[in-house]
């Protein structure tokens, strides 16, 4: 995975709370399992509409009023949004779509748990800030810089050549920060400690009282 250190870009403002994974990637795309290419389905139902010209053409066209279709936010790598982002299903496709579209960081006052976990598996940094600070970012028109090493979000207005006009600090669990900073796969990261884990388990006797295995499946038709 690409390491995450600093990302700077305009920020795409999506000022809604409780955006669920079905809005991020509608269910009709869950059947697809390739991890790349999901960006085109991101916010699909908000982003596209059917042609309304009566031609019977079933293809879709971008809705000009949706923020992702605005030329100003083309190439934006940071999404800012409301509380409880990513609630709903556990589909990892939601993060695949954000990452494939080019978002490297999402800033919100809170995230749904499974979505938050999934971000780290896919090189996306979820940044939790106070609601007031997110409000300011949603309205801000300059560049935002997310610095994972310094755990800072810096706001640069058009005239801020000397330095940022505002800096917000964020918290993140140390091992999650390491995973993103080093671009580690979390699976690979844990496997680095396989020996230590095995030793720990031997020492703490973590073998005796696990559940019995499941029974074999019954023959069909019973």
């Amino acid at each position, binding site marked *: 995975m690409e390491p995450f250190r600093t990302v700077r870009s305009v920020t795409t403002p999506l000022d809604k709370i409780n955006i669920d994974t079905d809005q991020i990637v509608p269910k009709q795309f869950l059947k697809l399992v390739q991890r790349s290419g999901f960006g085109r389905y991101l916010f699909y139902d908000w982003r596209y509409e059917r042609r309304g010209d009566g031609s019977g053409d079933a293809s879709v066209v971008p809705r000009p009023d949706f923020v992702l279709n605005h030329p100003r936010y083309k190439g934006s790598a940071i999404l800012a949004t409301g509380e409880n982002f990513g609630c*709903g299903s556990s589909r990892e496709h939601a*993060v695949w779509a954000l990452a494939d579209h080019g978002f490297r960081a999402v800033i919100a006052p809170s995230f749904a748990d499974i979505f938050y*976990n999934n971000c780290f598996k896919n090189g996306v940094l979820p940044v939790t800030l106070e609601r007031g600070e997110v409000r300011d970012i949603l309205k801000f028109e300059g560049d935002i810089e997310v610095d994972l090493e310094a755990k800072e979000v810096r706001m640069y207005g058009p005239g801020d050549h000397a330095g940022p006009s505002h800096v917000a600090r964020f918290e993140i669990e140390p091992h999650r920060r390491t995973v993103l900073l080093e671009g580690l796969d979390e699976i*690979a990261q844990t496997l680095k400690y396989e020996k230590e884990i095995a030793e720990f388990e031997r020492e703490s006797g*973590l073998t005796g009282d696990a*559940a019995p295995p*499941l029974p074999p499946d019954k023959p069909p038709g019973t």
Partner: protein
Amino acid sequence: MNLVERILARASGKSSVSPNDVVFAKVDRAMLHDVSGPGVIKVFERIAGQGIPTDKLWDPDRVWVAEDHFVPSAEKISAENIARLSEFTSRYGIKNHFRYGMGQYGICHTISHEEAMVMPGDVYVGGDSHTNTTGALGAFACGLGHTDMAYVLLNGEIWFKVPETMYFRLNGRLPSHVMAKDLILRIIGDIGTDGGAYRTMQFGGTGIEEMSVEGRLTLCNMTTEAGAKNGIVRPDQKTAAYLEERMRGAGREATAKVSLGRGGADYSEPDGADSDYAEVYEYEAPELEPVVAEPFSPENTRPVSEAPSVELDKSYIGSCTGAKYEDLEAAARVLKGRRVRIRTEVLPAAISIYRRAMESGLLKIFLDAGATVGPPTCGACCGAHMGVLGKDEVCISTTNRNFPGRMGHVESRTYLASPMVAAASAVTGRITDPREIAHAA
């Protein structure tokens, strides 16, 4: 330690744990379905490319597989995913694969209890957000993304931050027209869709002791809609009897003995003092009423008695939330001898439930009322197929989510309700309190 802490301490080999501790826990059971299965296969392919061995699972006998979201195969791609899933289970030697068209199958969470796949005190993870459901059996049950599931399948363990527990105490017995679904909708309305974020929601009190295992399953199922890490109910003799009955039914007489404790821990120990919990909420069961959640969020709740008079197009009685046997029984009590005025679909959540509903005559009641009875599937609950909603269609549903587009078109509207409210509304064509129907009879 409270119940979740005792389970996580046991599973991580510690004598005690506290909220916010990070523990590395042994997983007892893991579940995949036809969306998360292909997702995990993809992750396996990717990490195999990085040289991580993926040739065998930690323990194929602790892994089970369901087919539910896009079955019976909705179209070509979902048929291919089912084929891919079958190839996966045979390659890795997973014996517990519940295939549609081959005896028992159904929605993964329903199979978890109908087939007694999870035991009290287990750490159980699944590639689906409603894995929380199974916490009603006294397990620590939660959903994971594809990458985490892949990790569990290879290593049999995963880390958790020990969640704080919110305790919901139900005093007294629910009135006959009020179901567990009404209670959980009321709770979500009270605490909001992120009110349980990264916390355990535990249910207890005399009302929960009185409540059937299936009612408890409904409560834990929708802890997901409150953002909770998991939902849980202390396992008791009712839990054990429920599971043992199903183990015998599945031909597992030899092992049909359920233990409520493990490794010195007794999970049936009475719930502790309020100080064991981060927050305690009290509900008086006799005062509760039927509730609906209006579009477009499960937290938009209000009593049915105060709901606007909305013309409905459809009533949907299905899903892991609202199509267990007792859900169908409750809906049938309302529909018996009546006719539906709007399109009504009943989809039992597993074949075992379908069969019981056939044998006890519930299916006849549904058909006599004019409803359609369909096969077990997640179907329209997740907007996948079979009965999805079109633009501007309005549905009352026993399912769990009503976000925009959840059941079909982004401009369709879903009201979430109990099976009794969905059935009463099917009879009148508008949102209806089951008591109204009873009086009309």
